């Protein structure tokens, strides 16, 4: 169905043994001398963990950095909402952890669809991250002797997760933000908050600048540089309802894609099993409840369909503890993707609970009876409090109602080992790239990747790029800037010009529903094919009936939303197409047609052990699929089982 190009990717993975690749790469990379660094300008878009850490580190090296974010302050990027923790191979608990084991767990957790060399480097620099953050004053949890504490996290048999209460993301981001602000004070970083990137400027095949809209004045602005770092996060909000912040969007990444950057594995989306369910059609976002709750909570639904009794009024004999029934070995602690699909299966079969019937119970009754309320409160008090605040129910008395929700996206712009996209000079860091998590991300690994890319990878690899290329000076008066600016302005003017009847919110909800129903936790050919057509129709409807009031030359949040939605309507089609073409099940991508007799994901390593990297050919036109073959040398291909 889609054209497949036979491009041989140069992913620039260094030769040699796995454990020596990164050192070899660092040895071979060229350096920029300090005097020349001052003359080089680097644009960093996004101020989450990846963006803030990269901007700060590059400025410390002496480059001129310009940092952009759409929020009112760089401190607000959505990395701030991460709860659980950050992994590192310190082996402080002396329980047998090592760089190799972290690498192994991450490759396996990703269901053998990530690039081994990237993952190994991630594990290698993980320890430096903890050192760096501790030195910045990140208040990680400590033991009474003053040394750092660890806790266990999903999928690992060792205790390697560092944490700051339930606010690890907040504290790591504020650490990176403080490093960024320190460089603002030195004058090496210029800060541009409340700016949204609306196009990438490519001059002679190299990324040389960006076009942004000043969200306060509505003015379009042009910025040129020697290279561009994109750190703009994931695309979970394509589904409308997700655990992402309301402003998180795919726009910057998508516009780079339209300028030639390949988009890799967009169908790898992570659906987190324990979120507070949708309570009504006004719902604007979903809130995660840490998966640690499944350590003590038991998941069940009533034996009878449409049982509307309160959970605590249903006797044991009329309950179906379906995870314990289906997965006797792992029980309630099956991995995220398995737990999510099982909840959906029960609800689809009519056993869901609550008014919407799109929820299952997570019950602490037995744990409270066993350990006492006090013990449960000590472990999960803040989560119970948050649950009560949102739902108005007391989870100590009645079982929690939970349902899976879109949480993280493993796919993203394709990058090589240097984190450079298929456009020279455009580097992509953090969740915005595809590289390290394969088809499923393990808990506490997103924070690790964002900071690894920003603190310890990009500062070296961008330097090598700058030292290896003699780039001519580019002025923002260049034709390419004029064209890109006109393109971005034209798109906004077109949106304002429609003056139709439908709000951006209503179309976005419809797109989200389409994607969730057809390309969510489980996918099948027929539904995917029909969804592609429906997305195209919805896109046409957007351009004929979108209603955005107000002017372009002002703060106009409605226009911002409509612009992001327009990109989701193009991106959504690619997401579905990728899911359709990948005729196997792996990690977060589950195709009904490809499962074992026991309903487990069935990988097809013979035909799909590759990265699908899509090349844009035009809106509504078939993209070209490029394939990067994946080799597993250190961690041989194997099947996961949880029975």
């Amino acid at each position, binding site marked *: 169905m889609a054209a497949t190009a036979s491009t041989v990717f140069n992913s620039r993975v260094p030769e040699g043994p796995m454990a020596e690749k990164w050192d070899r790469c660092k040895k071979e990379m060229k350096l920029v001398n300090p005097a020349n660094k001052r003359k080089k300008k680097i644009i960093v878009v996004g101020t989450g963990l990846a963006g803030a*850490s990269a901007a700060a*580190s590059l400025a410390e090296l002496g480059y001129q950095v310009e940092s952009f974010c759409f*929020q009112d*302050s760089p*401190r*607000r*990027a*959505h990395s*701030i*909402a991460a709860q659980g923790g950050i992994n590192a191979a*310190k082996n402080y608990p002396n329980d047998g952890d090592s760089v190799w084991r972290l690498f192994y767990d991450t490759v396996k957790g990703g269901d053998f669809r990530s690039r081994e060399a990237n993952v190994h480097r991630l594990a290698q620099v993980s320890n*430096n991250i903890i*050192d*760096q953050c*501790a*030195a*910045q*004053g990140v*208040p*990680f949890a*400590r033991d009474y*002797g*003053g*040394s*750092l504490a660890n806790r266990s996290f999903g999928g690992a048999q060792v205790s390697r997760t560092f944490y*700051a209460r339930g*606010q690890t993301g907040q*504290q790591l981001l504020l650490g990176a933000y*403080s*490093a960024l*602000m*320190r460089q*603002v*004070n030195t004058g090496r970083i210029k*800060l541009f*908050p409340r700016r949204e990137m609306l196009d990438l400027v490519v001059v002679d095949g190299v990324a040389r600048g960006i076009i942004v809209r000043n969200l306060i004045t509505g003015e379009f602005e042009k910025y040129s540089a020697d290279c561009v770092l994109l750190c703009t996060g994931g695309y979970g909000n394509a589904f409308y309802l997700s655990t992402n*912040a*309301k402003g998180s969007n795919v726009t910057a990444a998508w516009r780079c894609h339209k300028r030639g950057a390949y988009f890799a594995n967009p169908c790898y989306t992570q659906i987190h099993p324990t979120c507070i369910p949708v*309570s*009504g059609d*006004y*719902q*604007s*976002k979903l*809130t*995660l409840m840490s998966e640690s709750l499944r350590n003590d909570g038991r998941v069940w639904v009533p034996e009878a369909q449409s049982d509307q009794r309160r959970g605590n009024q249903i006797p044991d004999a009329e309950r179906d503890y379906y995870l314990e029934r289906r997965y006797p070995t792992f029980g309630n602690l099956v991995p995220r993707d398995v737990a999510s699909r099982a909840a959906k299966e029960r609800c689809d079969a009519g056993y869901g609970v609550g008014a919407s019937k799109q929820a299952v119970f997570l019950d602490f009754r037995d744990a409270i009876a066993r350990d006492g309320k006090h013990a449960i409160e000590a472990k999960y008090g803040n989560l119970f409090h948050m649950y009560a*605040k949102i*739902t*108005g129910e007391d989870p100590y008395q009645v079982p929690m109602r939970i349902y899976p929700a879109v949480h993280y996206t493993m796919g993203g712009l394709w990058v090589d080992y240097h984190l450079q996209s298929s456009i020279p000079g455009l580097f992509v860091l953090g969740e915005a790239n595809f590289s390290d998590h394969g088809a499923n991300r393990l808990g506490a690994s997103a924070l690790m990747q964002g900071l690894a890319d920003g*603190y*310890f990878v990009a500062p070296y690899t961008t330097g090598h790029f700058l030292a290896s290329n003699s780039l001519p000076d580019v002025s923002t008066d260049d034709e390419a800037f004029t064209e890109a600016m006109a393109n971005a302005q034209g798109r906004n003017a077109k949106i304002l010009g429609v003056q139709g009847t439908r*709000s951006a*919110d*209503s179309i976005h909800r419809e797109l989200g529903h389409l994607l969730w129903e057809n390309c969510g936790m489980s996918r099948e050919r027929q539904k995917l094919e029909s969804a592609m057509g429906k997305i195209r129709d919805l896109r046409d409807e957007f351009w004929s009936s979108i*209603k955005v*009031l*107000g002017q372009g030359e*002002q*703060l106009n949040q*409605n226009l911002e939303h409509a612009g992001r939605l327009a990109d989701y309507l193009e991106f959504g089609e690619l997401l579905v197409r990728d899911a359709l073409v990948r005729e196997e099940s792996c990690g977060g991508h589950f195709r009904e047609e490809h499962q074992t007799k026991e309903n487990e994901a069935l990988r097809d390593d013979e035909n799909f052990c590759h990265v699908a990297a899509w090349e844009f050919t035009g809106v509504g036109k078939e993209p070209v699929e490029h394939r990067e073959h994946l080799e597993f040398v250190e961690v041989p291909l194997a099947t996961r089982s949880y029975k």
Partner: protein
Amino acid sequence: MSETLDLTLKVWRQPGPDASGRYVEYKLTGISTHMSFLEMLDVLNEQLTEKGEEMIAFDHDCREGVCGMCSLMINGQAHGPDAGTTTCQLHMRRFNTGDTIVIEPWRARAFPVIRDLVVDRSAFDRIIEKGGYISVNTGNAPEANAIPVPADVQETAMDAAACIGCGACVAACKNASAMLFVSAKVSHLSTLPQGEPERASRVQNMVAQMDLEGFGNCTNTEECQAACPAEISVSNIARLNREFLRAKLCAKE
């Protein structure tokens, strides 16, 4: 309790920074008690769009109480009536049918209104810029366990570091003082051994910038603590004052 509410809203509308603003009254019916406060405003905005009126601009992002982007004075209280709760986590079951709810932006000289309920809080970034950090370059860090930090010291630092930078403290204060915000960062960093080398310069530089930005003085009314959604304690202000005095008295120049 009824599952839906009928409400009257009085919302501050101001087209731009230099335009004059006014309260506009809106009637809402059938608001679900399960909605968050911001979802209630989403519903209103959808209705306004349908009627051909421009949406009410308000800041928000994570909607789970941690990014600090949402604000709003709700019936005169920063982030509304619930303690330790941001506007995005406030739910409509807290209100009764027939209620009139007055919604205003943060009001402070240092936080000028941009449009409707959106204000400019960049003053906070400029204060952090002057010293809200520990000066350590990437790659310079010693092994993380080389500097032990006693658990209670770390807990005190964490209590202060939990500040979300929303500005409720300023909005709640009759003098529009930023002392709670500044003291939270000063406390976080001066408590930790890593923050020791810059202890004196940090507090002086941050306080100097705070004054430059036009925030008012602290008169210890503690309204900031009552309004703070992250439950930052005013004991941090006492610590800031000690740190400031210490820096001045022990000045080397």
